[in-house]
């Protein structure tokens, strides 16, 4: 390991000591994870694929024993997090939505895997992999993609952006159908937050004669390319018909296929020098960001302690300006959300009305030369989904316009506040100017996307941190990028908006299928058109009301909440004193303590600099 890494390690542990003295629980938690990560190489691998494509089997193949339940029926109904480590022995955990965890036994694990309780977030297994080289690997086995849409989205959105490698699993015999197309289009959209994520295509359960170049695999790859926009390496995994070298008496062992080719390639990918270097850089950068934040924090403290009464008053005025900026920002978010609430339902209604008219026209036009069956296929296969896609597109671009504008407005508010703080400083004393400068630098960093202070929140607090599910390296990128910056809210839109249309279509498919189902068998040659029109109208109206509910209760509140959180993340910690109404006491002890902490910090920075870790110019 490099010198920089060594330096980072020791700086990290010193920083933990330093912050513990200060009682900064949140940052200590993040640093502890960072500490672990600096000592142990890790990599996050996520497996996705249709139900019963054999994802759990592939994980068992990595462990060289059957740990995850497998079967012909869907057996994985929740995400299972497999932590590969050196220690022998297997431990099973249930991790709950409230960030608590529970050590459970194997049978409880199996039953939860089949039918998870509502409060369960995911399952975790800590065990030794079949080959010690794989220690440090975190593998996420996901439920198969089926019609439980919302659950699946959550899975994709929370795990894919944080994965170092994504394995796409397709059954050789079942092949690449509509379900795969929908799933992998979604995967590509979700994963593209980080465009560098390497994909592997695992063609599972293939016959002994199959290979990556055969026509079946090529066909699968072709279709996969159209979903991903890139060409993943193909690995075929043969069905476990031939026995492997397992201890006698373990019948289940015979069901474990030989998949080392796949896992070896994954390991190679993970250990690529370029990737390792990038990881190291990201970790160091994270450390540097935290140090700067702490330094800015302490500087502000120090300035407040040092300031005389008049200066303090002016510093308070400055904080008021900042507070106003935050409140204005929140108000801007509110106005935006209200406009969405006003306009989106209207767009929806209008779109559906015109789609109902259009559908009726299409049905009328059809009868003249073709029959009911053909017409239903036409409606289901083109007219309705195409109309819905157009509608979703209109709604998406409306949201995008609003968010882009909000983005500019929020940036403007922040910049204006910073300028005002500078120009309105009457005293022009060092303390006041320095305070304004500190705020300007801090906000500048944040606009640039450095957001270490929010990582803690991103982890779901202490509990989430302890559960250790987050990929620190990826998180630094994905989370910070998703917050403020040039793309203040654009990112929020991306995560919500990109899957918007897909969600729409999925729901449409379900509704239309149910409503139209019966009609094929009961239609009469004379009346089917009228009936079909009625049914289509019924389906669209039902879809509209479901979508409207979803918009009002989920989508718009989510957009509002995400943006509010962005604003709060941006300002709140700077206004902690202001918000709590706490007075800044002139405390000689505090001042001295702060000063000594800053001195310690300065020497930490110097160490990092000596180790060649680039510190930004703090001017």
């Amino acid at each position: 390991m490099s010198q920089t890494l060594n330096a980072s390690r020791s700086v990290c542990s010193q920083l933990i000591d330093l912050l513990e003295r200060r009682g900064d629980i949140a940052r200590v938690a993040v640093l502890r994870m960072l500490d672990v990560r600096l000592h142990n190489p890790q990599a996050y691998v996520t497996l996705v694929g249709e139900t019963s494509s054999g994802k759990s089997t592939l994980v068992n193949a990595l462990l060289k024993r059957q740990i995850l339940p497998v079967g012909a029926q869907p057996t994985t109904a929740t995400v299972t997090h497999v932590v590969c480590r050196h220690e022998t022995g297997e431990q099973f955990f249930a991790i709950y939505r409230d960030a608590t965890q529970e050590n459970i036994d194997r049978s409880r694990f199996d039953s939860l895997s089949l039918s998870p309780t509502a409060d369960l977030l995911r399952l975790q297994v800590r065990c030794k992999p079949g080959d010690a080289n794989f220690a440090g690997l975190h593998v996420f086995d996901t439920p198969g993609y089926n019609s439980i849409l919302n659950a699946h989205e959550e899975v994709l959105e929370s795990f894919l952006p944080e994965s170092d490698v994504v394995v796409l699993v397709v059954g050789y015999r079942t092949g690449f159908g509509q379900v795969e197309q929908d799933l992998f289009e979604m995967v590509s959209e979700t994963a593209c937050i980080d465009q560098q994520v390497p994909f592997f295509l695992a063609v599972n359960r293939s016959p002994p004669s199959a290979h990556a170049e055969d026509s079946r695999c090529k066909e699968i790859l072709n279709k996969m390319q159209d979903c991903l926009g890139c060409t993943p390496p193909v690995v075929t995994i043969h069905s476990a018909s031939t026995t492997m070298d397992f201890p006698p008496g373990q019948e289940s062992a015979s069901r474990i296929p030989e998949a080392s080719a796949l896992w070896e390639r994954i390991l190679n990918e993970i250990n690529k020098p370029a990737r390792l270097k990038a990881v190291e850089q990201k970790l160091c950068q994270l450390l540097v960001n935290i140090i700067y934040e702490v330094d800015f924090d302490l500087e502000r403290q120090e300035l407040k302690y040092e300031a005389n009464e008049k200066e303090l008053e002016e510093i308070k005025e400055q904080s008021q300006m900042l507070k106003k900026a935050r409140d204005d920002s929140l108000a801007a978010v509110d106005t935006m959300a209200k406009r969405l609430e006003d306009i989106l339902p209207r767009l929806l209604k209008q779109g559906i009305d015109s789609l109902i008219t259009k559908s009726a026209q299409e049905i009328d036009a059809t009868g003249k030369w073709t029959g009911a069956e053909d017409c239903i296929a036409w409606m289901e296969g083109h007219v309705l989904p195409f109309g819905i896609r157009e509608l979703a597109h209109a709604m998406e671009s409306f949201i995008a316009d609003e968010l882009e504008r909000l983005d500019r407005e929020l940036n403007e508010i922040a910049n204006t506040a910073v300028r005002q703080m500078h120009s309105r400083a009457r005293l022009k004393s060092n303390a006041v100017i320095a305070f304004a400068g500190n705020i300007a630098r801090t906000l500048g960093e944040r606009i640039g996307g450095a957001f270490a202070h929010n990582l803690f929140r991103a982890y779901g607090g202490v509990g989430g941190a302890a559960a250790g599910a987050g990929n620190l390296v990826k998180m630094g990128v994905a989370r910070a990028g998703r917050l403020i910056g040039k793309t203040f809210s654009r990112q929020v839109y991306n995560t919500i908006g990109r899957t918007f249309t897909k969600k729409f279509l999925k729901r449409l498919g379900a509704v239309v299928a149910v409503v139209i189902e019966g009609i094929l068998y009961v239609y009469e040659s004379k009346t089917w058109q009228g009936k079909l029109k009625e049914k289509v109208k019924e389906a669209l109206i039902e879809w509209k009301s479901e979508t409207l509910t979803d918009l009002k209760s989920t989508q718009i509140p989510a957009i509002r909440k995400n943006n509010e959180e962005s604003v709060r993340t941006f300002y709140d910690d700077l206004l902690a004193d202001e918000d709590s109404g706490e007075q800044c006491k002139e405390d000689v002890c505090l001042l001295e303590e702060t000063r000594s902490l800053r001195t310690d910090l300065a020497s930490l920075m110097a160490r990092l600099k000596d180790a060649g870790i680039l510190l930004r110019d703090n001017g």
Partner: protein
Amino acid sequence: MTSRERILSVLKNADGCRIIDHHVEKVTSDKQSPTRMRYDHYLKQLAAERLVVTLTGVQGSGKSSILNAIAFDNIVLPIDVPETTCVPVEICGAVEPSSEAMVYFVDGRTERIPATEENLNRYVHQTYNPGNTLGVDRIVLQSDRPIFRSGMVLVDLPGTGSLTEANKETTRAYLDEAVGVVFVIRTVPPITRSEAIYIGLQWARTPFAFFLQNRWNDETFHESNSARDHNQNILKDIASRNRIVIEGAEPIHVVNAYAALEGVLNDDTTGLEESGLTTFLKALDDRARVWTEQLTAGIAASVETDFITALKEVDDSTELLSADREQIEDRIKQEEKRFESYIQKVKLRQQGLSDDLKKLIKTEEAWRTNWSNSSGAQLRNNMRTKFRQGIIDGSRLEKAMHDEESLVLNDALEHMGESIVASQVGLCDIFEGIDEWKISRPDCFKVVSKEERTKYENLARPILSAGGGVGGLVGGTYAAAKIGAALGSPGGPVGAIIGGVVGIAIGGLLGSYLGGKTREKVHEWTAPEKEVFDAIDDFISQASKDLTKQIGEYRTKTEANVTKWKETQIGKFEAERRKRQDIRDAEKHEKANMQKILEKDRNRICELLSLIRVGSE
């Protein structure tokens, strides 16, 4: 004499025209007089026979209802036509309006038809005149409503969408002539991305713009206000993206088109007022009348600059006549030096433009590659889904494919529109501060204060583009440069360039022709996958080619316009130098003769100048 009459007399004065030709434009007498052409254009504008205001808005915006309410007592223009053939319809004022409409055809024929909805439908309805196979160029109607008394002519212009080749030029000519534009926007959906591009392009080149948001009866006031706020924000963005100077937020007039039409049909004045149309018309009328004054002032400023420049040229020549050979040589050298540094500056900016355009071509190419790949993939996936659903029949597939293609194509066109708009703004930056080549004499320059400049800003903008279209009217581009010079603001090549390229951008956006083209190719489908996928490849490569062509054309024309502008400046300088050399080489008696002519010209100039100046004070 009113100021208008005075400026008219200056414009009509043949002597003045000759003087400007000779001293400012520096053309020899055997050539066609550019000044005459320009002044005739001014005369036409001042005559206020036509004050063209275009109305644009997408299908379903309520545009036709509004026009009917504005101009007629009953429904004349077809409303609720799902697919109109895009034929421009012009409505102009008349004391005793004809009950007939005049139909002009592309081939020059005309036809009189009764001005009724039924009859007009035969020319504008897709069913009766699909793709404008009848070759209609435009339709002209008359109205006796007071709004037309200012000379205003309202033109119902096809918005984005399918503009047939046949009347593309007519539409462009209307755009060039327009001094105002009314954008009819909807409450829901609010301004879309394509609308935003179109609005930006047209707004930037039209002296004044009005925004009319239609509120249908089933849209509540609350919704309409909310949408108006959204639209207002979008307009603010469009303005800043296109460098349009506006004071605060551009007001949006909310009008209930249906109520307005009802009000007119039932002779219900209260209803009409409540619809919001009356208020809007008043604002439009006020603006139109103020515009006439502004136009007069603008033209006066432009002509004044002409004569001031001429005066300087005359004084310069007079001075040289009494100078000795050496002094003249000095002066020639001095000017050569000044021109050298001027032209270097121009060339440098030209290079900057060239680099920018090269970059644009490159980034667009990269974008297109990406678009081709992802659109191809998207089309294949969407068609696969349809196969799985059982859509394998030829005509069905064809229709489905056409729909899908139009979606991805629209993305590409929107993107291209936005790129071109952005490129134009960059172009303004590049040429900032570059003026026409002109004589350098410190005296008698009209100093324009900053306030005055802002006052003229909105004037300069329109004239900058009026008539600047490809092969458009001659006057416009000149006026742009002239007004720019008068204001001391960048009157450089930007006007000429932008005028020339916006047409291309608009042409590019009217691009549904592409879809039509590929559709023919896919006609013979019998068996799906391979054939469909081949057709997708064809479509993508054809679309790519067309997009490449469009952006290439934008680049070529932009560069050509700059080169042409530069050459004009070189020509002017060379004429100046020739003039000085002629003076240098002239015999004594020739000099005396020259002196006499110059004196005569000078007197004439002063005479005309005082006429203009009295007017402007």
